[in-house]
């Protein structure tokens, strides 16, 4: 290579789209599928949304089987689509948006306007057992085509009510007949509908009826955890047109390509959420990200996050970051600065919204940022793939993207007024519902540093654990615990012995079944209460003489303090006291849970078999493990663990 700065050389450097096209031309795209996600990520973070659209057109033509043949480990998803109008335009963006998350999607498109048949017929493709997501795409014509002509506001009121009731009953029936998640969407109100009514009174009534229809759809999702509603109004409000009138007229495409692309992005994040791949940490840069200016050059008096035009925009961004943090996403700083001045700014700079207590880690130093992200992940005991990184420097974003492709990058630029839009453009932090533990998470992690201090001052691990004063409370899961237990089942990756993910419905069903046992593990210590940190799923078999532990999981915040041992000791004591003779347990390996492979043997379980699906163990209850001496156990189960 010659000089890198010459324009001629720069021109020959391929854009991510050109690289993707070259892979296709070389016939190596299937084998190189793992390189697709980083290329698409580079298009998005580089602001080349139109290239992402072109990439979708390319990827939708890629043969899935050839990818799976070359890369059998590729994560896959099956999406079935139905609707009233032409929705084929969503396939390419869906393919691209899923590919951004490394997921190879199969789109199954129903016939034009076949939604009633698709939903009513339990043998339709929409009901196929391997479907992960069923997308029922609603558009304005779904209502308009049933109003008749000429129409009055009353016709719209009646049609909207009737249609909502029909959608509600078809959707509910679908969730009974299928295991897929059903995805509906709100329908933006077209001006071409309201303004066909010339009197303001009718227009107001029509507007109310239309919003009631959308509100009713959103309520369906509140009432049924298997129904999800993508709200299209915010996408339209951000300036994406509802349709392209000529495509609507000539091709019956009632929702425009750009709106379907925005919809596809939301659906891909929804799929990610359902797979438990939610991001948990937001790492932000400081200079020109949190405040205007460079602390090292300008000094604390020269930076601003209030009072000036630009400063206020940074302050608004800080409030958005704080808002994300208030909902259980851990915040951290990675900044190229000396540590002390950054901490000082967070402590006493008058402009700051975010303070030291808002951050789980402040890494201000001169090491490369990828190393800092790894360090933060290690200190928080969280996977680096649960990280989002926001920085205004293309260099830092590029470095992290190259070195840690599993980190989601939010590339900010020199315009702070656009920081929030960029941060929220992707639903990285989307979660089904928040629990009390989420709202308290930042405080829980803050006490971690106090624990770390105790550990440093303790001579040995035993001494530390003695000083910690760990309390464990084991109880049957009550109605109020269901959300948190389901969430743990989706979030926990490291201490998750079989990684069987259970949603709210599954947990509710098990908790209500007398043959099943759903236990919650709560813990606390002298620094505070940790809340619900784990769960055990088990079921009784062979007339109550066997207990099968389906899964046990524990939040990564609290491993290795004896909580897991105390839980199993109490569980086995309970089993023996209730007439169980054998307890069965298993371990199913994933990329994340290798550390707990030997957990069951360490608790006195004997190995019975090793299969492709994992390891199986049994305990004959002759010799019960002891509760670790430093743990104060409070168990509402029968049997006393000693």
């Amino acid at each position, binding site marked *: 290579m010659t000089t890198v700065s010459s324009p001629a050389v720069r021109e020959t450097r391929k854009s991510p789209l050109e690289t993707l096209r070259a892979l296709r031309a070389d016939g190596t795209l299937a084998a190189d599928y793992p390189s697709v996600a980083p290329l698409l990520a580079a298009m998005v973070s580089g602001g080349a949304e139109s290239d992402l659209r072109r990439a979708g*057109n390319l990827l939708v033509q890629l043969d899935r089987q050839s990818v799976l043949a070359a890369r059998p480990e590729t994560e896959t998803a099956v999406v079935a689509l139905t609707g009233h109008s032409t929705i084929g335009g969503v396939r390419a963006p869906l393919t691209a948006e899923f590919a951004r998350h490394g997921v190879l999607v199969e789109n199954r498109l129903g016939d034009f306007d076949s939604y009633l048949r698709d939903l009513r017929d339990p043998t339709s493709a929409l009901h196929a057992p391997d479907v992960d997501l069923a997308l029922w795409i609603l558009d304005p014509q779904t209502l308009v085509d049933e109003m008749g002509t000429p129409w009055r506001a009353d016709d719209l009121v009646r049609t909207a009510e009737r249609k909502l009731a029909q959608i509600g009953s078809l959707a509910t029936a679908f969730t009974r007949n299928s295991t897929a998640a059903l995805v509906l969407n709100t329908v933006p109100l077209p001006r071409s509908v309201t303004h066909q009514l010339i009197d303001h009174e009718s227009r107001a009534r029509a507007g109310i009826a239309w919003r009631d229809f959308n509100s009713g759809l959103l309520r369906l999702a509140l009432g049924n955890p298997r129904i999800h509603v993508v709200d299209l109004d915010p996408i339209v409000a951000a300036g994406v047109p509802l349709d*392209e009138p000529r495509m609507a007229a000539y091709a019956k*495409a009632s929702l425009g390509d750009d709106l379907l692309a925005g919809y596809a992005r939301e659906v891909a994040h929804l799929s990610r959420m359902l797979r438990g791949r939610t991001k948990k940490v937001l790492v932000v840069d400081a200079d020109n990200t949190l405040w205007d200016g460079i602390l090292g050059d300008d000094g604390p008096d020269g930076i601003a996050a209030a009072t000036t035009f630009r400063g206020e925009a940074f302050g608004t961004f800080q409030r958005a970051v704080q808002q994300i943090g208030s909902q259980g996403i851990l915040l951290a700083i990675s900044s190229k600065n000396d540590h002390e001045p950054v901490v000082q700014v967070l402590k006493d700079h008058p402009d700051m919204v975010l303070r030291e207590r808002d951050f789980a880690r402040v890494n201000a130093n001169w090491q490369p940022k990828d190393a800092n992200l790894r360090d933060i992940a290690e200190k928080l005991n969280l996977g680096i793939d649960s990280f989002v990184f926001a920085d205004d420097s293309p260099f830092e974003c590029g470095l992290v993207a190259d070195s840690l492709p599993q980190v989601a990058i939010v590339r900010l630029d020199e315009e702070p007024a656009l920081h929030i839009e960029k941060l929220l453009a992707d639903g990285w932090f989307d979660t089904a519902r928040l629990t009390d533990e989420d709202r308290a998470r930042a405080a829980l992690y803050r006490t971690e540093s106090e624990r770390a201090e105790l550990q440093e001052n303790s001579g040995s691990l035993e001494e530390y654990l003695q000083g910690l004063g760990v309390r464990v409370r084991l109880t049957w899961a009550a109605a109020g615990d269901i959300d948190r237990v389901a969430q743990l089942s989706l979030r926990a990756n490291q201490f998750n012995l079989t990684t069987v993910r259970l949603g709210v419905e599954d947990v509710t069903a098990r908790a209500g079944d007398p043959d099943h046992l759903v236990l919650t593990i709560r813990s606390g210590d002298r620094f505070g209460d940790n809340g619900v940190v784990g769960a055990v799923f088990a079921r009784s078999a062979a007339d109550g003489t066997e207990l099968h532990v389906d899964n046990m999981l524990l939040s990564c915040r609290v491993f290795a303090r004896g909580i897991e041992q105390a839980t199993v000791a109490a569980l086995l004591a309970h089993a023996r006291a209730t007439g169980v003779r054998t307890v069965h347990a298993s371990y199913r390996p994933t990329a994340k849970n290798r550390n707990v492979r030997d957990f069951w043997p360490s608790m006195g379980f004997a190995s019975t078999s090793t299969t492709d699906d994992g390891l199986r163990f049994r305990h004959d209850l002759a010799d019960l493990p002891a509760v670790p001496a430093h743990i104060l156990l409070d168990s509402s189960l029968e049997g006393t663990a000693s």
Partner: protein
Amino acid sequence: MTKEDFIHLVRDELDLPLGVDDLSADFDHVVSWDSMHMLRLVTAVERETGTRVPVGRLLADRSLGAIYERVSAA
């Protein structure tokens, strides 16, 4: 807009592997062509040229060459 620009646009926007010869071929002989392709092509041409193309009249055309003639006349 030259023929080459037009072909480039078809390739770039629709990801259809077309050669200049395909301009005169009937749609039935061009890979998986449908009316959505036509409409997307038109919006792409409009983005490129800043001129509105009368779509309704294009729909009856049976070849890319005919579309190109109308588009370049618009």
